[in-house]
């Protein structure tokens, strides 16, 4: 019996390792990322240089900071398609605050962030509290925010925000561009919140089994609500950085951001319907897009190939998702009987057992 139980135990371990492998779609993507990096390093001497890698990070910094709350929303069964337009609206509002209302720079930035947060707040109220469909509400926001931006600016673009504001998009601290520093800061805070606090597992539980999460007291309404606000703020921050880089507050800013963000998150293995996924995987998705875009330019291949590669990777991700769901349904067996009751529970004086009053 001891032998057979050892064998089943090994089988259990094997099933769990298989499942871990499936789970680590983000991990698989990291492997692909390293492979891609090696290829570009061989193909182009310019790839593996400090300045080029900084450029890669700079290019994905806005995408990256918006993808952090984006991944949290998707894993909890939510979605924010309005981030691109909200980035544009915040940029346009900043232009108006700064040049039409002649507010000081600091106030213009704070108010532009507040515009994004307010949009996120409205999304949150409609989706988290009133249980509206996130796809419909934020698709409405996608069209609506762009319309509002055009309305308040009469489709004008404002220029010349001065040197102080240019630091936000073009400045460097310790050799790192400011947007990269902001992205890394957002990401590290996101990692802590996701993995070291209960928030990550609570978001997963909301996306996986909302009823169960609610029954054990998870804040199934308040938690996504807060993340929608953060998503709006992250989009606004992205819009401001782009405005600073271009020195122009245009309503065009942020166009297409929502699909880039969604692509990175899905590549990183977050399930579209929620309940599964990781923030590390999302980082892999973000970097994969960045490295691909950058490397293909370096080896003189057109941007069409980059689009094709991202499309192909998404399809592979979709297939892996199905494989993983299949693996998840394979039952794990306990070493011996499924559930076995010891003769007398009260006799079991286990050292360190939970003792409660």
């Amino acid at each position, binding site marked *: 019996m001891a032998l057979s139980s050892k064998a089943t135990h090994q089988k*259990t371990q094997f*099933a*769990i390792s298989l*499942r871990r492998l499936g789970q680590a779609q983000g991990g698989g993507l990291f492997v692909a990322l390293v492979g891609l990096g090696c290829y570009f390093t061989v193909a182009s001497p310019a790839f593996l240089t400090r300045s080029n890698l900084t450029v890669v990070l700079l290019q994905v910094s806005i995408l990256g900071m918006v993808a952090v709350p984006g991944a949290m929303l998707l894993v909890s069964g939510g979605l924010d398609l309005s981030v691109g337009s909200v980035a544009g609206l915040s940029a346009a509002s900043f232009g108006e605050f700064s040049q039409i209302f002649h507010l000081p720079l600091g106030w213009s930035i704070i108010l532009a962030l507040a515009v994004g947060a307010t949009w996120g707040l409205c999304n949150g109220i409609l989706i988290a509290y009133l249980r509206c469909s996130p796809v419909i509400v934020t698709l409405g926001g996608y069209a609506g925010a762009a319309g509002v931006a055009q309305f308040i600016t009469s489709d004008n673009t404002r220029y010349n925000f001065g040197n102080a504001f240019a630091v936000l998009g073009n400045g460097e601290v310790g050799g790192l561009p400011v947007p990269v520093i902001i992205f890394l800061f957002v990401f590290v805070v996101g990692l*802590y919140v996701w993995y*070291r*606090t*209960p*928030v990550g*597992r*609570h978001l*997963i*539980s909301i*996306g*996986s*089994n909302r*009823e*169960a*999460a*609610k*029954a*054990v*007291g*998870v804040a199934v309404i308040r938690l996504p609500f807060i993340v929608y606000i953060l998503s709006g703020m992250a989009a606004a921050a992205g819009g401001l950085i782009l405005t600073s880089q271009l020195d122009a507050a245009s309503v065009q800013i942020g166009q297409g951001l929502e699909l880039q963000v969604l692509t990175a998150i899905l590549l990183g293995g977050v399930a579209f319907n929620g*309940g*599964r996924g990781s923030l590390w995987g999302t980082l892999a998705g973000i970097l994969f897009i960045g490295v691909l875009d950058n490397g293909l330019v370096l080896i003189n291949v057109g941007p069409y190939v980059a689009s094709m590669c991202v499309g192909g990777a998404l399809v592979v991700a979709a297939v892996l998702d199905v494989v993983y769901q299949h693996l*998840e*349904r*394979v*039952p*794990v*067996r*306990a*070493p*011996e*009987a*499924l*559930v*076995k*009751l*010891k*003769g*007398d*529970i*009260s*006799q*079991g*004086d*286990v*050292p*360190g*057992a*939970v*003792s*409660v*009053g």
Partner: protein
Amino acid sequence: MSVGIGSSDPGGPAAVAQPHEEMLAVHDVVKRYGPVTALRGVSLSLRKSEVLALIGDNGAGKSTLVSIIAGLSKPDSGEVLVAGKAFTSSPHAARSAGIETVFQNLMLVPTLDIAQNVFLGRELYQGGPVGRLLRNVNNRRMRREVEEAFASLGLNLPPVTAKAGALSGGQRQAVAIARAVIWGSKIVVMDEPLAALGVQQTEAVLGLVEGLRDHGIATLLVTHNMQHVLRVANRVAVLRLGQKVADVDLVEHHLTGMQLVGLITGELTQDEL
């Protein structure tokens, strides 16, 4: 009350010998859903170390009563008292008061692992004020506590890092029940815990119910199976059309399955027993 998995609480007969301490009291609870009155003034009392079976036909109001006790819905009138104190209708308040509910659909999150499920919504933090302030979870301690609890309950389950979605029905049941014990609940409410289980697993879960009783925990067991009632319950309450029609002590009266069915359908009244 000292109820500990590894404590020296005298199990079995000694614990059953002092069953009069009332743990849960339901007073005259009325619940309406629009024009339908699901509960028409139901009162119930649950004492320490007792397994009270709640039976009744479909639509009798069993699930409504369970959801009120679990804090998931609010009664239109009447109240639920735990150890003499009323609690507000919220799942959190019910759990804080010591009521753990094992639901029909088990209420586990399939994509989280066993340890995460057991501690979901009540995570343990790293020691010290900083760990608490930063809400820094202590995964290692949570896993260890779950492992120890399983061991002391004699449960033989997959590693606590296995996803709940990969468990069989009986395993999930065991996890849900272990959760109740780990949290030191005084009252465990089980809504059809045996509905989808095989013979061996049913036996194991019934054994767990008896184990809860020996720990001094009061159990409310909702079931359709009369054999299970007769096997583990000390008392049976029968609901029919939103009213309690019988409340029989099974230690004093030896009922048969047929008599229980008679009470459910209304062919028999308590006075006729």
